[in-house]
């Protein structure tokens, strides 16, 4: 049985072997895949290369740079390395290198960023090479010892055999010698058809500790002498602290210090977090809320609605033919306006980070989706150079994009800097977390479809108005002002390409950026683009008097991969056979994150307002499936996240601040509301797509289209709670 070890690694995990002493880290730096200097793990075991450490007892420690937040890529990445390494899977364990260690070794572990469904697809190539390179070196070491050609040796499950002489040895016995070899310049990766570990629904490596309460999340960090901080940031985004009266909380139990954090926040530091929070609530704070305090959901909606007007400027993301002329000359025209609200990530574990700052060192312990971004934030907030800082990653209690941000890391360091030598654990209350998110951007969309006399769709105009994430978070990625990511799912080409061919097409974005900070929220722009487009496709199908599946199929001839997943769900749900009485179906498809996905839902509706989701079928083609059991969970989880947002989500703005403060006003689905999700995986090979996010795009439109089938009513505004529609 596998030893399920949670990924932990202390800051002294890497020490350089004796050969490198004197020349310091420099020797290890230039040889990412091994070399004459043996780099050793904390227990002295040799690194065969940066990805693989083999212990004398044959345990294989696989290094994972990307973060585990529940999506399973820690296990998937280990499978990819183990596949090429040909080691014994039951002896595999994993650990995280720190960003500081990676930077000191010229980023030997590459990108740490774990978002955009990139964890596996963007690192599969080099981690597999890491495993393959280590295998070649381990075999070579055995061959050298036996004085036989390496080509005559074989390996299986970490046991190397030379058939002619009958000799065998294990990885653990030759690792020391292997670590000293020069790595091969090039290695050949296995043909996917020969995979034995990749493609299997193996159990996760990180489960056991999650069932006993021993898994350490950021909120659980304990350090000697540690104090706890609770924080309140200005409730109006962009506002500032004017003053606070710390004398009012001076004598309160456990309170150690009240500190200003940046321009906009105040924190109370106390012996326990409960004392810190209690004092913070008693602390009088005067805010300078600024002009943003005048903004409300109504003013935002009005401003976005103005952007739907063709006279207003917009960026063109996808275009062919002449939409305006085609619409003007059409036999029939259909028009609809949709909107999608702000959404909070609402990770189960609120934001937190623990920082220890001294004059010459700053360490941070936290859950983060981007270790290197967190590391950069520590450098900036502490003012210390890279060699004096590090970030120690722990398990994330949910990420969904929120923990790719570093605001909470900066705050923790800013507080710790005011109390040098004392470790400070900063924890946000749920209320702080709900009201200081990086929200799914707000948008509206006006769509116009036009038909010729034979009910062929001749034109489609898709005009999005609303917020750009990149404008706020990565302005350097804008292209002449345009946010290319705004067109995720409706793009001309690439990893989120539009799946329909329409002779006259115009997809454009009138960028309007309210003051509420946007962020990457699971699925990102695919969410609203898929809802708008797939619900409107359903509207167009009905306007043309055609079956929604058949209507789509006719437009998808040039996009066989999009069509294949759509066909797969249609077949599985039995689209061409009538649903049971009182049961109604909806269907949707989209491409995102390099994968093709489709979903279909069966629902019943009582009194026009109570929805029971009875069945969900979802299909995905991510090219390759590394761990089908985990992909299945990501698909099902995407429906829970997407339908929670559809039914219960939505963050509204009043007086410049977010109104929803906890799960009582920003609810989330429970087990009684969630049917079984039937996954159909149709990996067609030849490309690597992501799986954590794309499926969320089809969750809401599948249900909304089923709702129309049941009631004849279109819902064009999210969330459903605002339409007085709920789960049955």
């Amino acid at each position: 049985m596998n030893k399920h070890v949670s990924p932990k690694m202390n800051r002294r995990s890497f020490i350089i072997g004796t050969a490198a002493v004197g020349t310091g880290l420099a020797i290890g730096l230039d040889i990412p895949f091994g070399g004459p200097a043996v780099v050793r793990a904390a227990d002295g075991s040799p690194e065969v290369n940066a990805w693989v450490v083999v212990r004398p007892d044959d345990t294989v420690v696989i290094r994972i740079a990307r973060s585990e937040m529940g999506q399973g890529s820690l296990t998937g990445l280990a499978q990819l390395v183990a596949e090429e390494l040909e080691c014994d899977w039951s002896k595999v364990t994993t650990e995280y290198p720190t960003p500081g260690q990676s930077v000191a070794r010229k980023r030997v572990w590459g990108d740490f960023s774990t978002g955009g469904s990139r964890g596996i697809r963007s690192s599969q190539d080099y981690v597999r090479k890491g495993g393959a390179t280590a295998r070649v070196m381990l075999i070579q070491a055995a061959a050298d010892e036996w004085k036989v050609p390496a080509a005559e040796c074989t390996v299986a499950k970490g046991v190397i055999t030379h058939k002619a002489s009958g000799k065998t040895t294990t990885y653990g016995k030759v690792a020391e010698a292997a670590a000293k070899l020069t790595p091969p310049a090039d290695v050949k990766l296995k043909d996917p058809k020969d995979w034995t570990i990749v493609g299997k629904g193996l159990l996760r490596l990180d489960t056991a500790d999650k069932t006993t309460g021993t898994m350490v999340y950021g909120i659980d960090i304990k350090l000697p002498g540690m104090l706890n901080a609770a924080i309140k940031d200005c409730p109006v985004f962009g506002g500032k602290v004017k003053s606070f009266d710390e004398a009012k909380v001076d004598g309160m139990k456990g309170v150690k210090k009240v500190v200003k954090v940046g321009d906009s926040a105040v924190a109370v530091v106390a012996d326990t977090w409960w004392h810190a929070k209690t004092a913070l609530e008693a602390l009088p704070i005067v805010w300078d809320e600024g002009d943003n305090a005048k903004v409300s959901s109504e003013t935002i909606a009005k401003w976005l609605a103005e952007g739907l007007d063709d006279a207003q400027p917009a960026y063109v993301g996808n275009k062919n033919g002449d939409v305006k002329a085609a619409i003007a000359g059409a036999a029939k025209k259909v028009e609809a306006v949709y909107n999608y609200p702000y959404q909070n990530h609402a990770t189960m574990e609120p934001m937190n980070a623990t920082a220890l700052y001294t004059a010459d060192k700053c360490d941070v312990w936290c859950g983060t989706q981007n270790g290197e971004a967190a590391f950069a934030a520590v450098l900036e907030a502490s003012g210390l150079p890279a060699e004096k800082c590090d970030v120690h990653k722990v398990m994330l209690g949910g990420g969904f994009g929120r923990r790719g941000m570093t605001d909470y890391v900066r705050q923790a360091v800013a507080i710790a800097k005011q109390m040098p030598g004392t470790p400070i654990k900063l924890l946000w209350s749920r209320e702080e977390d709900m009201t200081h998110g990086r929200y799914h951007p707000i948008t509206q969309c006006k769509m116009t479809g036009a038909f010729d006399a034979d009910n062929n769709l001749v034109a489609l105009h898709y005009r999005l108005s609303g917020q750009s994430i990149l404008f706020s978070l990565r302005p350097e990625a804008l292209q002449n002002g345009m946010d290319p990511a705004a067109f995720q799912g409706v793009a001309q080409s690439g990893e989120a390409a539009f799946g329909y061919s329409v002779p006259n097409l115009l997809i454009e974005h009138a960028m309007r950026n309210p003051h509420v900070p946007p962020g990457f929220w699971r699925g990102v722009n695919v969410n609203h683009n898929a809802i708008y487009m797939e619900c409107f496709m359903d509207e167009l199908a009905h306007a043309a008097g055609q079956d929604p599946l058949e209507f789509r199929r006719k437009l998808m001839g040039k996009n066989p991969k999009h069509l294949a997943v759509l066909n797969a769900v249609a077949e599985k749900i039995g689209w061409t056979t009538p649903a049971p009485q009182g049961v109604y179906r909806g269907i949707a498809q989209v491409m995102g994150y390099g994968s093709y996905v489709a979903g279909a839902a069966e629902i019943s509706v009582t009194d026009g307002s109570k929805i029971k989701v009875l069945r969900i079928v979802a299909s995905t083609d991510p090219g390759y499936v590394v761990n089908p059991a985990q992909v299945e969970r990501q698909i099902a989880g995407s429906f829970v996240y997407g339908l929670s947002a559809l039914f219960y989500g939505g963050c509204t703005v009043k007086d410049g601040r977010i109104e929803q403060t906890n799960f009582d006003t920003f609810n989330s689905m429970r087990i009684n509301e969630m049917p079984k999700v039937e996954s159909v995986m149709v990996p067609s090979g030849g490309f690597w797509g992501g799986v954590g996010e794309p499926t969320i795009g089809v969750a809401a439109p599948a249900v909304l289209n089923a709702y129309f089938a049941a009631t004849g009513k279109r819902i064009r505004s999210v969330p459903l709670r605002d339409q007085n529609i709920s789960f049955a």
Partner: protein
Amino acid sequence: MANLTINGKTFTLDVEPDTPLLWAIRENAGLTGTKYGCGIAQCGACTVHMDGVAIRSCGISVAEAEGKPITTIEGLASGSTLHKVQQAWIAKDVPQCGYCQSGMIMAVAALLSEKPKPTDADIDEAITNICRCGTFQQVREAIHTIASA
């Protein structure tokens, strides 16, 4: 000061009587397996057993918990033998991020001690914990696996 009996052990803790049990467990007793999710008894991440019944520990005070046996996730196993719910959770690979799972497991253990063979309707009624990752399908399957064992 308060005396709490947690996992069969008596803790004398320097806490005010109105401190939520959750924070006494996490910060004073040092048992961090019980999680903070909302603080208003909505999400269930802080679920523990008091007198054998699943309760949300953020919603009751230390004063109310004094003198009553409390079991947290750390006390669910019998010695080195994991509770059947924990075993099933591992066998069925239930957790994703795992943060809500301490509370989920405690809620399920309480349900099974009351109803060893729960129906889907029983599960729907008793298990009201929020899981943002969406592990519900695996939770349901694991419960049925235990019930049919």
